[in-house]
C-alpha cells in the first residue's frame, strides 16, 4: 500500500466529496422538507434546516389521506411478490442448473431473451388479461405479473451452479425424494442467492411505479408511491406535504437496503456474471 497524496489524489477527494453531497442532497431535502410548513417550504432564501419543525404534513397525510393504508398496500405487494418470486425462481433455477432434461437449452434461451424485454412494452395486453381475470384494481393485479420474472430464474440458476453434484447423487442413493433433496440439500447452499433475490425483488417491487399506476385506481388501493404521485397531481406546490409522502415511501426501503446491503450487492454482482 503506497500512501502518497498526489495533487490528482487531492482533486479526486474533493470531487468525490462534491458528488457525495449532490447525490445525498435530494434525500436530505425530502427529509427536511417533510417537517416544513407550507409557507416555510416555499420561502426564498430557502431554509436549509426547518426553522419551525412541524408534524402537520404527516398529520394531513395520515388523517386526510389513507396513507397508512397505502403503506400497508406497498408492504403487502412487496412482501408477497418477494416470497412468490423467490420460491418459484429457486425451484426453476435449481433444475436448470443441476438437471439434464429435454427442452432445457431452448427454455433457458427463452428466459435469457425475455430478460431484456421490459414489461412496459406489453402493458396494454397485460392490463387486458388482468381485466379478463377480474382482478383489476386489486393488489393481486400488481403481484401476479411480476412473478414469472426471468431475471430471478437466471440469478437462482447462477447460485445453484455451486451445489456439488456428488451431494445430490449421494442423497439420491440414500433414497431421498426430489423435493426433500431440494429443501434439505440444495436450499442451504443457495440460501445466499435466495436472500439476494429477496431483497432485490422487494426493492424493485416497492419502486415499480409503472405497474402500480396502470393496475390500481381506487384511492384505498394505492401504494405509497402512487399515493404521493396522486397528491402531487392534486396539490402541486404543497411541497411540505408531498415531501412527507416521499419520506414515507422512501424510509422503509432505504432502511431495508441499508440493513441488507451485503446480500443486495451480491445479488447485483451475481446477476451480471456470465453463465
Amino acid at each position, binding site marked *: 500500500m503506497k500512501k502518497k497524496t498526489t495533487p490528482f489524489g487531492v482533486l479526486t477527494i474533493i470531487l*468525490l466529496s462534491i458528488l457525495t453531497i*449532490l*447525490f*445525498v442532497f*435530494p*434525500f436530505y431535502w425530502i427529509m427536511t422538507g417533510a417537517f416544513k410548513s407550507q409557507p416555510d*417550504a*416555499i420561502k*426564498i432564501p*430557502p431554509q436549509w434546516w426547518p426553522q419551525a419543525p412541524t408534524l402537520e404534513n404527516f398529520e394531513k397525510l395520515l388523517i386526510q389521506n389513507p396513507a397508512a393504508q397505502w403503506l400497508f398496500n406497498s408492504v403487502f405487494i412487496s412482501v408477497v411478490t418477494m416470497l412468490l418470486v423467490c420460491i*418459484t425462481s429457486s*425451484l*426453476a433455477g435449481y*433444475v436448470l442448473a443441476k*438437471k439434464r*432434461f*429435454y427442452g432445457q437449452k431452448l*427454455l433457458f434461451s427463452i428466459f435469457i*431473451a*425475455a430478460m*431484456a*424485454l421490459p414489461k*412496459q*412494452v*406489453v*402493458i*396494454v*395486453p*397485460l392490463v*387486458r*388479461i388482468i381485466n379478463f381475470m377480474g382482478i383489476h384494481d386489486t393488489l393481486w393485479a400488481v403481484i*401476479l405479473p411480476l*412473478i*414469472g420474472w*426471468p431475471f430471478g430464474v437466471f440469478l437462482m440458476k447462477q447460485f445453484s451452479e455451486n451445489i456439488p453434484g456428488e451431494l445430490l447423487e449421494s442423497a439420491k442413493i440414500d433414497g431421498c425424494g426430489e423435493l426433500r433433496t*431440494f429443501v434439505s440439500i440444495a436450499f442451504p447452499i443457495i440460501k445466499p442467492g435466495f436472500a439476494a433475490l429477496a431483497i432485490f425483488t422487494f*426493492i424493485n417491487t416497492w*419502486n415499480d*411505479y*409503472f405497474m402500480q399506476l*396502470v393496475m390500481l385506481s381506487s384511492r384505498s388501493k394505492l401504494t405509497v*408511491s*402512487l399515493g*404521493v*404521485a396522486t397528491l402531487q397531481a392534486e396539490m402541486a*406546490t404543497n*411541497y411540505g406535504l*408531498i*415531501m412527507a409522502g*416521499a419520506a414515507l*415511501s*422512501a424510509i422503509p*426501503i*432505504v432502511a431495508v*437496503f*441499508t440493513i441488507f446491503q451485503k446480500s443486495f*450487492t451480491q445479488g*447485483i*454482482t451475481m446477476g*451480471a456474471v456470465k453463465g
Partner: protein
Amino acid sequence: MKTSHKLMMRETIVSYTFLAPVLIFFAVFVLTPMVMGLVTSFFNYTMTDFTFVGIDNYIRMFNDEVFIKSLINTIIIVVASVPITVIFSLFVASQTYEKSAFTRSFFRCVFFLPVVTGSVAVTVVWKWIYDPLSGIMNYVLKSGNLIEQNISWLGDKRYALLAIIIILLTTSVGQPIILYIASLGNIDKSLMEAARVDGANEFQVFWKIKWPSLLPTTLYIVVITTINSFQCFALIQLLTSGGPNYSTSTIMYYLYEKAFKLSEYGYANTMGVFLAVLIGIISFAQFKFLGSDVEY
C-alpha cells in the same frame, strides 16, 4: 441407451414439475401479452372498434410527428446517459475499490441512494428543486451569479429534456458502480504489479490490463443502462407529461398516453412492438460490437 432415455424422461418430468410455477406465470403474463400485442398491432383497436387494418398502424407511426419526436428524444436520452453513466461509474469505482470495506460500503450507499429512494420520491423532490419560484436550483445559480433571471427548467423547451436527463443520471449510476467495484476487485493484482515493475505507467496499466478485464462488465452495464433509459417513465409523466409541446415525450410516455389516456390500444401496441424490436436489436448489436474481443 434405453436406460439413459428412461432416466432422461424421469428427469424431464421432475424438472418440469419444479419449473411449472414459473412457466405458468411466464406463459400467462409474459408470452401471452407478447403474442396479443403483436397481433393487435395489426388492428384498429379502440374502445369501440376492432378491425383488421394490416400494417396501417405501422405506416401511421412513421408518419406521426409526435412519435418521431418521441423517438428522437428517446435516442437523445440513451445516447447522453449511457456513456456518461459508464465513465462516471468507472471513475467512482476505480477511486474507491481499493479503499477499506467501510469506505466502499459508504460510497455504494451514497450512489445507490437515489435508486433506493424510488422514482416517485426522487421525481417529486426534483420537481421542487426545479420550481421556478421556490426551487433551490434557481436560488443557488442566482447566488453564484451564474444566471440572472429565474429559469423555468421544466417549462422551457430548451432546458426540459436536459433537466430530466440530469435526474435520470443520478438514478442510473448506482448499479454500475457496484458492478465495477466488484469486477475491479477481481482483477489479478500480480499482473498489474508485474506490469508496473516492467515500467508501465498507470495509463498503460489501465488500458492494457484493467480495461480488457472490465469489458464484460462494461457490456452488461451498457445493456442495462440502455434498457433503463428506454423505460424512463415516472420522471416524464410526473414532471412534464411529455411537454412543453412534446419536447420531453419519449416512446414509453407516448405509448402510455395513447393507451391509457386516449384508448388507442392497437396503435399503442404497435409502438410496443417497435420498442421491443428496437431494444432487441440494440442489445444484440451491443453484444456483437462490444463483445467482439472479449475473452472469457
